[in-house]
């Protein structure tokens, strides 16, 4: 099963990769390790779960401008997120990876970690294929 969601291209490019979904706001600064490619926030469900090379799916960041560190080092393959803000702008200008936000229909309730996501930022959509479906 797959479904397409249309949004606003924040940074162009196309990539297909596995999704990693943050069920809670993501935080930067000391609460991300850009060299290892995972969040280090205590209490966070993704603490020490690598996002490198995956489509990082989240609602919104929170906290310091140090969120931009998600754009350094062992960075994700793409950003897919519900809400854009100056914090996401700061991360994307660092990362320069395909990024989409401000969707017509929020894709977050549909995407689970392990799903395959085709991010076509050039044409402003993502296509989510559920894990286990051919």
């Amino acid at each position, binding site marked *: 099963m797959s479904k397409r969601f249309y949004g606003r291209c924040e940074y162009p490019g196309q990539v297909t990769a596995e999704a990693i979904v943050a069920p809670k706001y993501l935080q930067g600064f000391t609460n991300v390790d850009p060299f290892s490619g995972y969040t280090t926030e205590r209490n966070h469900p993704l603490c020490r779960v690598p996002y490198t090379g995956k489509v990082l799916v989240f609602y919104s960041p929170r906290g310091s*401008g*140090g969120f931009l560190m998600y754009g350094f080092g062992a960075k994700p393959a793409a950003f897919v997120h519900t809400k854009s803000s100056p914090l996401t702008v700061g991360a994307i200008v660092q990362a320069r990876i395909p*990024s989409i936000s401000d969707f017509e229909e929020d894709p977050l309730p549909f995407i689970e970690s392990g799903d395959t996501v085709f991010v076509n930022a050039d044409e402003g959509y993502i296509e989510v294929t559920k894990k286990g479906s051919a």
Partner: protein
Amino acid sequence: MSLFAAPNLTDEEKRILDGGEGIVKQKCMEYLVELCQISGAERLVDLNGTGDMHTPGLNLSQHHVITLDELSDFADRGGRFKIPTFADKSPFMDQPPIHGWEHCNLCAGKRPDARQDDPIFHEKAMQRETFQILQKMGLITTHSCANYLVMSYLPSVGQHCSWFESSQQTYCNATLGARTNFDGTLATCLLGKAPYYDMHITENRHGTIMVTTDRLITSDIEWDVYGFAVGEACDVEVPIVNNTVIPNTTQYQKFNSAIATGGAVRMYHLPGITPEAPTASFAAGGKPIKEYIHIDEAALRRTYDVLNYRNKDDIDMVYLGCPHLNIVDLMTLALKLEGKKCKIPLWIVTAPWLYAPAKELGYLEKFEKAGALLLSGTCLAAVGSVPDGVRNIAVDTAKQAYYITGCYPDENDPLYVSYGSTDECIDAALTGKWRGEWR
């Protein structure tokens, strides 16, 4: 739909982008254009307020790098900051304390070759050559995450600014009523321009969520815990925050840093208190409220518990100064510590420009007699470590409580945090024990 569209630039901006005013301004403009493309901003706004940038800041991003030679040449040719620009505390791990570094027994980023109390490392980390060039261009080197405490030149209501530090975003937008996004860099401050979106636009500053709580928010720790809880509940929305007294400067510092840690709040209103909120209805721009959120006693308690991460009541060290302490905080601490003796290290951190007054007023001597260390211009979380052997630290701000543990992600060797009021932290410094509790 137009994707990744270039912004509309004026003739002057186009000339800068084409290199007509040199390589430094060109790189700055290229960076701003890319920010516009990512954010969807259709144009730049001319800044008429002030700038706050993390220094040295020559790397606008990994892809927009200004070399020291280019900057030096720019300065030699008369290149200046377009708006009054202040240095924030550097976010880079090597950043040295400006004062007290001789006693700062920790290694930046836990690197053994980066001991902050090593004179050779300190001298290198001060990056004097770079700062001389930046100062030549007009940078005012306050080196503080709370540089509004010492600016002596605050932006006025409605002025367009470009600040960076998260806790200063809220100070600028909500407390002062000036307008900033998270974008204070060499690019914005040097060109005096920023992407025109988000908090520069009046409609985006209107309150969208009404927040209430059960108790009247009065004490410093209540402002701090409430701030984190409101941030978590509202994230990127603009909350209208009720049930508080009028905050003092210390409480604004705590609330502004906590709300921008628990969430991504960069603007809020306190009805009848903050400049753009004579009433709740005015703060909402006359529009309907999207959501009503009540933060009850249980939610405040949960937030307090989240900020605490403790496995025993023995404390190794106490850290006060996030954000950097104001002069009244220093005075209060000095008087409370007079005649007392700390049992464990107590670090007190302030803005560099408040160090000399603290010395002149006798606070430094009182701290030293009590065995406390006064530092300036630094931050444990930003340096990325605590002194050797410290595994249980006590702090009095949500921001430091929630960030410092991220520096120690190893489950087998964690850093524990006891979070509470300033008085509870002082008690811990004098006894080595944690006796704080939520009240």
